[in-house]
């Protein structure tokens, strides 16, 4: 994508900016759609209807909310540390936006073809923690600080199982590049990593149960990293008002919201790349069958979005099913269950991939 635009325009900066606009658009549109979906899913799970008045089944509700948010007064508390307070939402959003730089939406649409994509994702998504701590500290509010502390503790703890599973996938595939991992799982869903990868051998069948365990663990731990229910103690509206963004209002609050939904899709995308074949179609491409090669990247984009949105839906589904974990339960789940399982999984996958 970048190379194509660079050849077309001939200017590095403009081409780079244009490439950056694509994921930004995707985040914004996804946030609009995701918030609406969340409302509808929650409503229908509780036998309600949800927003119904703005557009067909209320699909414009988020737009209306956005309009309201833009009109709001920007209030900064007197005792807040203004510099940090203003930087924090931008930093949090940057963290979640920067992840999209390496995510391949299809074989033709990817921002940066870096070889260390997975490593970059893990590193850059930790920026969010800094932003959250900044937001909590600068607001000079007990609830904000408590929320920020919890968020930091939680995100850092849950990065370990995530990293362990990512490590085992790196051992299996032998690459850190998200694009290459996607390319490996081509042609059929049977070649997805959750079914042991593309190489047909005994080890493929041995890997399948451990891949399921790995997918489950990374799903749980990334769920905790994006602060979603049942791991939403940093926000915990029933105890901490809104956690680290209690004091924010208007569009700054909106940026936290945007970052949350951006993160949701980002982690879903990472999981789908690692385990569910990324942008690869589960059956093969219509474009190849009818001889229209230009159709393939669009199909890939469709499959990528479909997989990502399915995982996002599962996240929402869990949110409206489970109650919130207590702090000690949260730590127990991470340190006593996920990490040992992830470790054992890592060792077993390592042994099998040597075979």
């Amino acid at each position, binding site marked *: 994508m970048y190379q194509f635009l660079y050849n077309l325009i001939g200017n590095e900066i403009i081409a780079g900016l244009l490439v950056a606009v694509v994921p930004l658009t995707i985040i914004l549109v996804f946030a609009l759609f995701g918030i609406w979906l969340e409302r509808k899913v929650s409503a*229908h799970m509780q*036998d309600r209807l949800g927003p119904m008045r703005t557009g067909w089944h209320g699909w414009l509700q988020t737009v209306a909310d956005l309009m309201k948010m833009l009109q709001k007064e920007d209030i900064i508390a007197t005792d807040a540390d203004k510099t940090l307070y203003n930087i924090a939402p931008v930093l949090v959003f940057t963290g979640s936006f920067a992840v999209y730089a390496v995510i391949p939406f299809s074989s033709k649409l990817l921002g940066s073809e870096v070889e260390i994509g997975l490593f970059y994702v893990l590193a850059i998504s930790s920026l969010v923690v800094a932003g959250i701590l900044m937001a909590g500290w600068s607001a000079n509010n007990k609830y904000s600080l408590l929320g920020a502390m919890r968020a930091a503790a939680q995100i850092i703890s849950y990065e370990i199982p995530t990293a362990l599973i990512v490590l085992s996938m790196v051992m299996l595939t032998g690459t850190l590049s998200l694009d290459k991992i996607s390319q490996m799982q081509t042609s059929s869903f049977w070649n997805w990593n959750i079914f042991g990868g593309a190489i047909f051998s005994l080890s493929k069948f041995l890997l399948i149960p451990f891949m399921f365990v790995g997918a489950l663990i990374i799903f749980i731990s990334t769920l905790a990293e994006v602060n979603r229910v049942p791991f939403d103690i940093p926000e915990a509206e029933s105890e901490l008002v809104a956690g680290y963004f209690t004091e924010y209002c208007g569009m700054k609050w909106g940026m936290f919201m945007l970052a949350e939904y951006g993160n949701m899709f980002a982690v879903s995308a990472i999981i789908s790349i690692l385990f569910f074949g990324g942008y690869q179609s589960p059956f093969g491409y219509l474009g190849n069958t009818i001889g229209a090669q230009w159709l393939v990247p669009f199909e890939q984009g469709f499959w990528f979005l479909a997989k990502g949105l399915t995982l996002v839906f599962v996240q929402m*589904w869990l949110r*409206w*099913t*489970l109650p919130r974990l207590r702090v000690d339960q949260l730590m127990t789940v991470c340190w006593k*269950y996920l990490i040992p*399982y992830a470790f054992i999984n890592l060792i077993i996958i390592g042994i099998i991939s040597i075979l």
Partner: protein
Amino acid sequence: MKQYLRNTWDGIFTVLVGMKVTFKHLFTPAVTIQYPDVKVKLPERVRNRLYVNMDDCIGCDQCSRACPVSCIEIETVKSIPGEDLGITSNGKKKALWVTKFDIDIAKCCYCQLCVFPCPTECIYMTDVYEFAEYERSNFLYKFATLTDEEAVQKKLNYEKFQAEKAAAAAKLKPETPAQTENKSE
């Protein structure tokens, strides 16, 4: 170790059970309704806003007396002979001009006690329940069909009739006092 594995299993299995329940509810029809567009059917004997059918009202004041919160105010003027007020739907002859029939619905407690004594069944509960107002004074419902001028007119008519009657009586009277005078003498 056994407990540990059991905990792990419970952790996964119970979540799946919960997810199954919520997934089922995803496809159950909503129990809520789109309120202002769709309304719940009211029970048959529902008690809501009062209404008075003035065509049938005979101004007997029984509803006002039955009201435990005194939210009904009625003033009547007697009709003079020769005036035809018509009859009610159940055949009672009307004898009073109802010059004022006010119900302060803000005071009303919806007990329906005013409905039972009414001899012509002209005061009753309707099924209207959306009558919020911005001004409290708007809750004073005036049911009297006569305009203020008409009411004043009726009152004057009656007073005039009374005066005429009194005058007629006075004409007759002097004879009787004269008789008594005679008697006393």
